[in-house]
Protein backbone atom coordinates (compact mmCIF):
# COMPACT_ATOMS: atom_id res chain seq x y z
CA UNK A 1 0.00 0.00 0.00
CA UNK A 2 2.82 2.33 0.95
CA UNK A 3 4.55 1.47 -2.29
CA UNK A 4 1.40 2.29 -4.17
CA UNK A 5 1.07 5.64 -2.42
CA UNK A 6 4.76 6.35 -3.07
CA UNK A 7 4.29 5.43 -6.74
CA UNK A 8 1.28 7.74 -7.03
CA UNK A 9 3.12 10.57 -5.27
CA UNK A 10 6.08 10.13 -7.56
CA UNK A 11 4.02 10.09 -10.71
CA UNK A 12 1.17 12.40 -9.83
CA UNK A 13 2.44 14.97 -12.31
CA UNK A 14 2.03 12.39 -15.10
CA UNK A 15 -1.58 11.74 -14.04
CA UNK A 16 -2.20 15.46 -13.82
CA UNK A 17 -0.64 15.87 -17.25
CA UNK A 18 -2.90 13.20 -18.75
CA UNK A 19 -6.00 14.67 -17.10
CA UNK A 20 -5.21 18.20 -18.27
CA UNK A 21 -4.34 16.96 -21.77
CA UNK A 22 -7.78 15.34 -21.88
CA UNK A 23 -9.35 18.67 -20.94
CA UNK A 24 -7.27 20.33 -23.68
CA UNK A 25 -8.50 17.71 -26.13
CA UNK A 26 -12.11 18.47 -25.24
CA UNK A 27 -11.51 22.21 -25.56
CA UNK A 28 -9.61 21.76 -28.82
CA UNK A 29 -12.16 19.61 -30.56
CA UNK A 30 -15.29 21.28 -29.18
CA UNK A 31 -14.37 24.94 -29.51
CA UNK A 32 -12.17 25.10 -32.62
CA UNK A 33 -14.26 24.78 -35.79
CA UNK A 34 -11.52 23.34 -38.06
CA UNK A 35 -10.44 20.74 -35.55
CA UNK A 36 -14.08 19.93 -34.78
CA UNK A 37 -14.84 19.38 -38.46
CA UNK A 38 -11.71 17.31 -38.77
CA UNK A 39 -12.55 15.03 -35.87
CA UNK A 40 -16.12 14.65 -37.11
CA UNK A 41 -14.73 13.63 -40.48
CA UNK A 42 -12.22 11.25 -38.85
CA UNK A 43 -14.92 9.81 -36.60
CA UNK A 44 -17.11 9.14 -39.63
CA UNK A 45 -14.17 7.44 -41.35
CA UNK A 46 -13.44 5.30 -38.28
CA UNK A 47 -17.14 4.43 -37.93
CA UNK A 48 -17.27 3.39 -41.57
CA UNK A 49 -14.17 1.26 -41.22
CA UNK A 50 -15.33 -0.36 -37.99
CA UNK A 51 -18.74 -1.11 -39.50
CA UNK A 52 -17.01 -2.63 -42.50
CA UNK A 53 -14.78 -4.73 -40.23
CA UNK A 54 -17.73 -5.72 -38.09
CA UNK A 55 -19.76 -6.86 -41.09
CA UNK A 56 -16.75 -8.80 -42.37
CA UNK A 57 -16.47 -10.61 -39.05
CA UNK A 58 -20.17 -11.18 -38.44
CA UNK A 59 -20.52 -12.29 -42.05
CA UNK A 60 -18.75 -15.50 -41.07
CA UNK A 61 -21.30 -16.35 -38.42
CA UNK A 62 -24.07 -17.18 -40.86
CA UNK A 63 -21.79 -18.39 -43.63
CA UNK A 64 -23.09 -21.94 -43.32
CA UNK A 65 -26.67 -20.77 -43.61
CA UNK A 66 -25.75 -18.59 -46.58
CA UNK A 67 -24.02 -21.56 -48.20
CA UNK A 68 -27.17 -23.64 -47.87
CA UNK A 69 -29.25 -20.87 -49.44
CA UNK A 70 -26.73 -20.47 -52.22
CA UNK A 71 -26.65 -24.19 -52.83
CA UNK A 72 -30.44 -24.32 -53.04
CA UNK A 73 -30.30 -21.46 -55.49
CA UNK A 74 -27.71 -23.23 -57.66
CA UNK A 75 -29.76 -26.43 -57.55
CA UNK A 76 -32.80 -24.49 -58.68
CA UNK A 77 -30.80 -23.03 -61.57
CA UNK A 78 -29.64 -26.48 -62.60
CA UNK A 79 -33.27 -27.57 -62.68
CA UNK A 80 -34.29 -24.69 -64.88
CA UNK A 81 -31.30 -24.71 -67.20
CA UNK A 82 -32.40 -26.18 -70.50
CA UNK A 83 -28.80 -27.16 -71.34
CA UNK A 84 -28.49 -29.49 -68.39
CA UNK A 85 -32.03 -30.76 -68.10
CA UNK A 86 -33.97 -33.01 -70.40
CA UNK A 87 -37.59 -32.38 -71.08
CA UNK A 88 -40.28 -34.71 -72.22
CA UNK A 89 -43.20 -33.50 -74.18
CA UNK A 90 -46.38 -34.66 -72.55
CA UNK A 91 -48.17 -34.61 -75.87
CA UNK A 92 -46.08 -35.79 -78.77
CA UNK A 93 -48.64 -34.52 -81.26
CA UNK A 94 -48.19 -30.91 -80.21
CA UNK A 95 -44.42 -30.45 -80.22
CA UNK A 96 -44.60 -26.75 -79.59
CA UNK A 97 -46.62 -27.23 -76.44
CA UNK A 98 -44.90 -25.51 -73.55
CA UNK A 99 -46.18 -27.89 -70.90
CA UNK A 100 -42.99 -29.82 -70.38
CA UNK A 101 -42.04 -32.22 -67.65
CA UNK A 102 -38.49 -32.38 -66.37
CA UNK A 103 -36.71 -35.70 -66.37
CA UNK A 104 -34.01 -34.74 -63.90
CA UNK A 105 -34.30 -33.25 -60.47
CA UNK A 106 -31.43 -31.82 -58.43
CA UNK A 107 -30.84 -32.25 -54.70
CA UNK A 108 -28.14 -30.21 -52.93
CA UNK A 109 -25.87 -32.03 -50.48
CA UNK A 110 -22.76 -31.44 -48.46
CA UNK A 111 -19.65 -33.59 -48.54
CA UNK A 112 -18.80 -34.88 -45.05
CA UNK A 113 -15.95 -37.23 -45.97
CA UNK A 114 -13.69 -37.37 -48.99
CA UNK A 115 -10.52 -39.10 -50.11
CA UNK A 116 -8.42 -38.59 -53.20
CA UNK A 117 -5.26 -40.61 -52.58
CA UNK A 118 -6.68 -44.11 -52.67
CA UNK A 119 -7.17 -46.23 -55.75
CA UNK A 120 -10.89 -46.38 -55.04
CA UNK A 121 -11.86 -42.98 -53.82
CA UNK A 122 -15.27 -42.49 -52.29
CA UNK A 123 -16.89 -39.46 -50.71
CA UNK A 124 -19.85 -39.35 -48.38
CA UNK A 125 -22.65 -36.82 -48.56
CA UNK A 126 -25.12 -35.79 -45.89
CA UNK A 127 -28.23 -36.87 -47.79
CA UNK A 128 -29.69 -40.37 -47.82
CA UNK A 129 -32.78 -42.41 -48.55
CA UNK A 130 -34.76 -40.07 -46.35
CA UNK A 131 -34.11 -37.40 -48.96
CA UNK A 132 -34.93 -39.68 -51.87
CA UNK A 133 -31.37 -40.65 -52.77
CA UNK A 134 -30.76 -44.13 -54.11
CA UNK A 135 -27.94 -46.16 -55.53
CA UNK A 136 -26.69 -45.20 -59.04
CA UNK A 137 -27.73 -41.58 -58.99
CA UNK A 138 -25.32 -39.12 -60.58
CA UNK A 139 -23.53 -36.51 -58.49
CA UNK A 140 -22.13 -33.25 -59.79
CA UNK A 141 -20.39 -30.27 -58.23
CA UNK A 142 -20.90 -26.66 -59.24
CA UNK A 143 -17.80 -27.16 -61.44
CA UNK A 144 -18.69 -30.40 -63.15
CA UNK A 145 -19.16 -34.15 -62.83
CA UNK A 146 -18.25 -35.62 -59.44
CA UNK A 147 -19.39 -39.25 -59.16
CA UNK A 148 -22.14 -41.85 -58.82
CA UNK A 149 -23.99 -42.87 -55.66
CA UNK A 150 -22.79 -46.29 -54.47
CA UNK A 151 -25.12 -46.85 -51.57
CA UNK A 152 -27.37 -44.95 -49.21
CA UNK A 153 -28.66 -45.28 -45.71
CA UNK A 154 -31.27 -43.11 -44.09
CA UNK A 155 -29.11 -39.99 -43.68
CA UNK A 156 -25.95 -40.49 -45.71
CA UNK A 157 -24.82 -41.78 -49.07
CA UNK A 158 -21.44 -42.91 -50.31
CA UNK A 159 -20.48 -41.72 -53.75
CA UNK A 160 -17.97 -43.30 -56.09
CA UNK A 161 -15.75 -40.42 -57.05
CA UNK A 162 -14.48 -39.84 -60.58
CA UNK A 163 -11.17 -40.73 -58.95
CA UNK A 164 -12.16 -44.38 -58.60
CA UNK A 165 -10.50 -47.06 -60.73
CA UNK A 166 -13.89 -48.66 -61.45
CA UNK A 167 -15.43 -45.42 -62.68
CA UNK A 168 -16.13 -45.35 -66.38
CA UNK A 169 -17.83 -42.42 -68.09
CA UNK A 170 -18.62 -42.09 -71.76
CA UNK A 171 -17.22 -38.72 -72.90
CA UNK A 172 -18.58 -36.28 -75.43
CA UNK A 173 -16.00 -34.03 -77.10
CA UNK A 174 -16.90 -31.43 -79.72
CA UNK A 175 -20.48 -32.75 -79.76
CA UNK A 176 -19.31 -36.26 -80.64
CA UNK A 177 -19.78 -39.06 -78.17
CA UNK A 178 -16.88 -41.49 -77.96
CA UNK A 179 -17.70 -44.96 -76.79
CA UNK A 180 -14.45 -45.49 -75.07
CA UNK A 181 -14.25 -45.07 -71.34
CA UNK A 182 -12.95 -42.10 -69.45
CA UNK A 183 -11.07 -43.64 -66.53
CA UNK A 184 -8.86 -42.72 -63.69
CA UNK A 185 -5.46 -44.36 -63.71
CA UNK A 186 -4.72 -43.82 -60.02
CA UNK A 187 -1.87 -41.42 -60.68
CA UNK A 188 -2.91 -37.79 -60.53
CA UNK A 189 -6.01 -36.71 -58.55
CA UNK A 190 -6.87 -34.16 -61.21
CA UNK A 191 -6.31 -36.14 -64.37
CA UNK A 192 -8.44 -38.79 -66.06
CA UNK A 193 -7.41 -40.79 -69.13
CA UNK A 194 -9.13 -41.81 -72.35
CA UNK A 195 -7.42 -44.45 -74.42
CA UNK A 196 -8.36 -45.57 -77.89
CA UNK A 197 -9.29 -42.29 -79.52
CA UNK A 198 -8.29 -42.42 -83.15
CA UNK A 199 -5.56 -40.03 -84.25
CA UNK A 200 -7.77 -38.97 -87.14
CA UNK A 201 -10.20 -37.36 -84.70
CA UNK A 202 -9.87 -33.59 -84.58
CA UNK A 203 -8.89 -33.25 -80.97
CA UNK A 204 -6.72 -30.62 -79.39
CA UNK A 205 -5.59 -29.60 -75.95
CA UNK A 206 -8.22 -27.41 -74.31
CA UNK A 207 -11.23 -29.18 -75.84
CA UNK A 208 -14.02 -29.55 -73.30
CA UNK A 209 -15.22 -32.98 -72.32
CA UNK A 210 -18.91 -33.37 -71.42
CA UNK A 211 -21.32 -36.13 -70.50
CA UNK A 212 -23.29 -37.59 -73.38
CA UNK A 213 -26.70 -39.08 -73.95
CA UNK A 214 -25.65 -42.65 -73.35
CA UNK A 215 -26.16 -42.40 -69.63
CA UNK A 216 -29.39 -42.23 -67.71
CA UNK A 217 -27.62 -40.98 -64.61
CA UNK A 218 -26.63 -37.55 -65.88
CA UNK A 219 -28.14 -35.07 -68.27
CA UNK A 220 -26.05 -34.58 -71.41
CA UNK A 221 -23.78 -31.55 -71.32
CA UNK A 222 -22.39 -31.80 -67.81
CA UNK A 223 -18.76 -30.73 -67.91
CA UNK A 224 -16.28 -33.44 -66.98
CA UNK A 225 -13.10 -31.54 -67.74
CA UNK A 226 -10.86 -30.45 -70.55
CA UNK A 227 -8.14 -32.15 -72.54
CA UNK A 228 -4.80 -31.32 -70.93
CA UNK A 229 -2.51 -33.54 -72.99
CA UNK A 230 -2.69 -35.68 -76.14
CA UNK A 231 -0.09 -38.42 -76.34
CA UNK A 232 0.70 -40.73 -79.20
CA UNK A 233 3.56 -42.58 -80.81
CA UNK A 234 4.42 -42.81 -84.49
CA UNK A 235 3.56 -46.49 -84.57
CA UNK A 236 0.24 -46.07 -82.74
CA UNK A 237 -3.04 -45.33 -84.39
CA UNK A 238 -4.53 -43.90 -81.21
CA UNK A 239 -4.24 -40.99 -78.85
CA UNK A 240 -3.86 -41.39 -75.14
CA UNK A 241 -5.89 -38.43 -74.01
CA UNK A 242 -5.47 -36.84 -70.57
CA UNK A 243 -8.39 -34.89 -69.19
CA UNK A 244 -8.09 -32.44 -66.34
CA UNK A 245 -11.18 -32.79 -64.16
CA UNK A 246 -13.43 -29.75 -63.89
CA UNK A 247 -14.26 -30.66 -60.31
CA UNK A 248 -11.53 -29.99 -57.82
CA UNK A 249 -11.68 -33.08 -55.62
CA UNK A 250 -9.17 -31.67 -53.19
CA UNK A 251 -11.70 -29.06 -52.18
CA UNK A 252 -15.08 -30.70 -52.60
CA UNK A 253 -17.62 -29.24 -50.18
CA UNK A 254 -20.97 -28.95 -51.89
CA UNK A 255 -22.44 -31.26 -54.49
CA UNK A 256 -25.76 -31.87 -56.24
CA UNK A 257 -27.36 -35.27 -56.65
CA UNK A 258 -29.05 -35.77 -60.01
CA UNK A 259 -32.31 -37.65 -59.68
CA UNK A 260 -33.65 -39.22 -62.84
CA UNK A 261 -37.33 -39.25 -62.07
CA UNK A 262 -38.19 -41.88 -64.67
CA UNK A 263 -35.29 -44.21 -64.09
CA UNK A 264 -37.63 -47.02 -63.01
CA UNK A 265 -39.44 -46.81 -66.32
CA UNK A 266 -36.35 -46.37 -68.49
CA UNK A 267 -34.15 -49.14 -67.12
CA UNK A 268 -36.61 -52.02 -67.86
CA UNK A 269 -36.91 -50.77 -71.43
CA UNK A 270 -33.15 -50.90 -71.89
CA UNK A 271 -32.92 -54.31 -70.24
CA UNK A 272 -35.59 -55.70 -72.53
CA UNK A 273 -33.63 -54.53 -75.56
CA UNK A 274 -30.39 -56.00 -74.19
Amino acid at each position, binding site marked *: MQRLIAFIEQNIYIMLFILLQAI*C*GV*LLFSLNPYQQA*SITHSAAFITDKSNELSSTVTGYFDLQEQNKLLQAQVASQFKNDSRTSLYFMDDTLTLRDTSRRKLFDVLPAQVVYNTIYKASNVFIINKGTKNGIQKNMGVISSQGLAGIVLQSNENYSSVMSLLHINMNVIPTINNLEYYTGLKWDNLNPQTLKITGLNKLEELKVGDKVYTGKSSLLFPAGILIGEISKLETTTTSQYFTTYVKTATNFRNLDYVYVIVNKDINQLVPLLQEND
Partner: protein
Amino acid sequence: MIRLIFYWIAILFLQFVVFNHLGFTAYLAPQVFIVLLITLPLHISKPYQVLLGFTLGLIADLFVGTPGIHASACMWLVIIRLLLLGAQDLKEQIANHLPYNVHSVGLSTFAATTASLVFFYHFYVFWLESIGAINGYVILFTTLVSALFTLTVIGVVQLLSDKASGEF
Protein backbone atom coordinates in the same frame (compact mmCIF):
# COMPACT_ATOMS: atom_id res chain seq x y z
CA MET B 1 9.90 38.41 -6.54
CA ILE B 2 8.74 41.76 -7.92
CA ARG B 3 11.41 41.49 -10.57
CA LEU B 4 10.11 38.06 -11.45
CA ILE B 5 6.52 39.28 -11.76
CA PHE B 6 7.68 42.21 -13.88
CA TYR B 7 9.64 39.83 -16.07
CA TRP B 8 6.56 37.62 -16.61
CA ILE B 9 4.30 40.57 -17.34
CA ALA B 10 6.84 42.08 -19.73
CA ILE B 11 7.24 38.86 -21.68
CA LEU B 12 3.47 38.24 -21.83
CA PHE B 13 2.86 41.83 -22.91
CA LEU B 14 5.43 41.51 -25.67
CA GLN B 15 3.85 38.23 -26.80
CA PHE B 16 0.19 39.26 -26.79
CA VAL B 17 0.57 42.85 -27.93
CA VAL B 18 3.56 42.72 -30.24
CA PHE B 19 4.53 39.22 -31.40
CA ASN B 20 0.95 38.02 -31.93
CA HIS B 21 0.40 40.90 -34.35
CA LEU B 22 3.62 41.11 -36.33
CA GLY B 23 1.81 40.65 -39.63
CA PHE B 24 4.94 40.61 -41.82
CA THR B 25 4.19 37.23 -43.18
CA ALA B 26 1.84 34.34 -42.48
CA TYR B 27 4.89 32.16 -41.85
CA LEU B 28 5.99 34.15 -38.82
CA ALA B 29 4.12 33.42 -35.58
CA PRO B 30 6.73 33.38 -32.83
CA GLN B 31 5.77 32.07 -29.42
CA VAL B 32 8.29 33.94 -27.31
CA PHE B 33 6.33 33.55 -24.05
CA ILE B 34 7.47 29.94 -23.74
CA VAL B 35 10.74 31.27 -22.44
CA LEU B 36 8.86 31.68 -19.14
CA LEU B 37 8.38 27.91 -18.95
CA ILE B 38 11.85 27.09 -20.24
CA THR B 39 13.48 29.26 -17.59
CA LEU B 40 11.27 28.19 -14.68
CA PRO B 41 13.18 27.90 -11.39
CA LEU B 42 14.49 24.38 -11.03
CA HIS B 43 13.20 23.72 -7.50
CA ILE B 44 9.50 24.03 -8.41
CA SER B 45 7.73 20.67 -8.02
CA LYS B 46 6.69 18.77 -11.12
CA PRO B 47 2.89 18.93 -10.56
CA TYR B 48 3.15 22.71 -10.12
CA GLN B 49 5.14 22.98 -13.32
CA VAL B 50 2.46 21.03 -15.19
CA LEU B 51 -0.29 23.21 -13.69
CA LEU B 52 1.67 26.33 -14.49
CA GLY B 53 2.13 25.18 -18.08
CA PHE B 54 -1.58 24.48 -18.41
CA THR B 55 -2.55 27.89 -16.97
CA LEU B 56 -0.05 29.83 -19.04
CA GLY B 57 -1.12 27.96 -22.16
CA LEU B 58 -4.80 28.70 -21.48
CA ILE B 59 -3.99 32.40 -21.07
CA ALA B 60 -2.11 32.32 -24.38
CA ASP B 61 -5.09 30.56 -25.96
CA LEU B 62 -7.43 33.32 -24.74
CA PHE B 63 -5.46 35.91 -26.67
CA VAL B 64 -5.40 34.05 -29.95
CA GLY B 65 -8.75 32.26 -29.76
CA THR B 66 -7.42 28.72 -29.96
CA PRO B 67 -8.76 27.03 -26.81
CA GLY B 68 -6.70 24.00 -25.83
CA ILE B 69 -3.88 24.31 -28.35
CA HIS B 70 -1.34 26.31 -26.35
CA ALA B 71 -2.47 24.70 -23.08
CA SER B 72 -1.72 21.27 -24.52
CA ALA B 73 1.56 22.42 -26.10
CA CYS B 74 2.75 24.12 -22.90
CA MET B 75 2.17 20.96 -20.88
CA TRP B 76 4.07 18.90 -23.43
CA LEU B 77 6.85 21.47 -23.26
CA VAL B 78 6.97 21.13 -19.47
CA ILE B 79 7.12 17.34 -19.64
CA ILE B 80 9.82 17.29 -22.32
CA ARG B 81 11.76 19.93 -20.40
CA LEU B 82 11.60 17.72 -17.32
CA LEU B 83 12.96 14.82 -19.36
CA LEU B 84 15.77 16.89 -20.86
CA LEU B 85 16.68 18.42 -17.50
CA GLY B 86 16.63 14.97 -15.91
CA ALA B 87 19.60 14.09 -18.11
CA GLN B 88 21.58 17.12 -16.92
CA ASP B 89 23.51 17.55 -13.68
CA LEU B 90 21.60 20.38 -12.01
CA LYS B 91 21.87 19.50 -8.28
CA GLU B 92 23.70 22.72 -7.45
CA GLN B 93 21.23 24.92 -9.30
CA ILE B 94 18.29 23.18 -7.63
CA ALA B 95 19.86 23.58 -4.20
CA ASN B 96 20.37 27.29 -4.85
CA HIS B 97 16.81 27.74 -6.23
CA LEU B 98 18.19 29.08 -9.49
CA PRO B 99 16.16 29.47 -12.65
CA TYR B 100 17.17 27.49 -15.72
CA ASN B 101 19.00 30.04 -17.86
CA VAL B 102 22.18 30.66 -19.76
CA HIS B 103 23.99 31.92 -16.64
CA SER B 104 23.08 29.00 -14.40
CA VAL B 105 23.76 26.10 -16.78
CA GLY B 106 26.05 27.50 -19.45
CA LEU B 107 25.51 28.59 -23.03
CA SER B 108 25.80 25.30 -24.86
CA THR B 109 23.50 23.33 -22.54
CA PHE B 110 20.94 26.10 -22.38
CA ALA B 111 21.06 26.70 -26.15
CA ALA B 112 20.63 23.01 -26.99
CA THR B 113 17.73 22.53 -24.55
CA THR B 114 16.02 25.77 -25.56
CA ALA B 115 16.39 25.13 -29.29
CA SER B 116 14.92 21.63 -28.93
CA LEU B 117 11.98 22.89 -26.89
CA VAL B 118 11.32 25.91 -29.11
CA PHE B 119 11.33 23.88 -32.32
CA PHE B 120 9.12 21.22 -30.74
CA TYR B 121 6.67 23.78 -29.38
CA HIS B 122 6.24 25.63 -32.67
CA PHE B 123 5.90 22.45 -34.67
CA TYR B 124 3.31 21.04 -32.25
CA VAL B 125 1.24 24.25 -32.19
CA PHE B 126 1.26 24.71 -35.98
CA TRP B 127 0.42 21.07 -36.49
CA LEU B 128 -2.54 21.25 -34.05
CA GLU B 129 -3.73 24.50 -35.59
CA SER B 130 -3.71 23.04 -39.09
CA ILE B 131 -5.57 19.83 -38.28
CA GLY B 132 -8.16 19.44 -41.00
CA ALA B 133 -5.93 21.03 -43.65
CA ILE B 134 -2.42 19.84 -42.91
CA ASN B 135 0.29 20.99 -45.29
CA GLY B 136 3.61 19.52 -44.19
CA TYR B 137 5.81 22.01 -46.04
CA VAL B 138 3.94 25.03 -44.68
CA ILE B 139 4.12 23.66 -41.13
CA LEU B 140 7.84 22.97 -41.39
CA PHE B 141 8.64 26.33 -42.95
CA THR B 142 6.50 28.24 -40.45
CA THR B 143 8.11 26.27 -37.62
CA LEU B 144 11.58 27.05 -38.91
CA VAL B 145 11.00 30.80 -39.38
CA SER B 146 9.04 31.30 -36.15
CA ALA B 147 11.39 29.17 -34.03
CA LEU B 148 14.46 31.02 -35.31
CA PHE B 149 12.78 34.33 -34.53
CA THR B 150 11.80 33.12 -31.05
CA LEU B 151 15.31 31.83 -30.36
CA THR B 152 16.74 35.20 -31.38
CA VAL B 153 14.38 37.02 -29.01
CA ILE B 154 15.16 34.59 -26.20
CA GLY B 155 18.86 35.16 -26.84
CA VAL B 156 18.37 38.91 -26.62
CA VAL B 157 16.30 38.55 -23.43
CA GLN B 158 19.02 36.40 -21.89
CA LEU B 159 21.62 38.95 -22.90
CA LEU B 160 19.61 41.84 -21.48
CA SER B 161 18.82 40.03 -18.24
CA ASP B 162 22.51 39.37 -17.87
CA LYS B 163 23.31 43.02 -18.27
CA ALA B 164 20.50 44.13 -16.01
CA SER B 165 20.82 41.86 -13.01
CA GLY B 166 22.53 38.62 -13.75
CA GLU B 167 19.23 36.81 -13.07
CA PHE B 168 16.63 35.16 -15.28
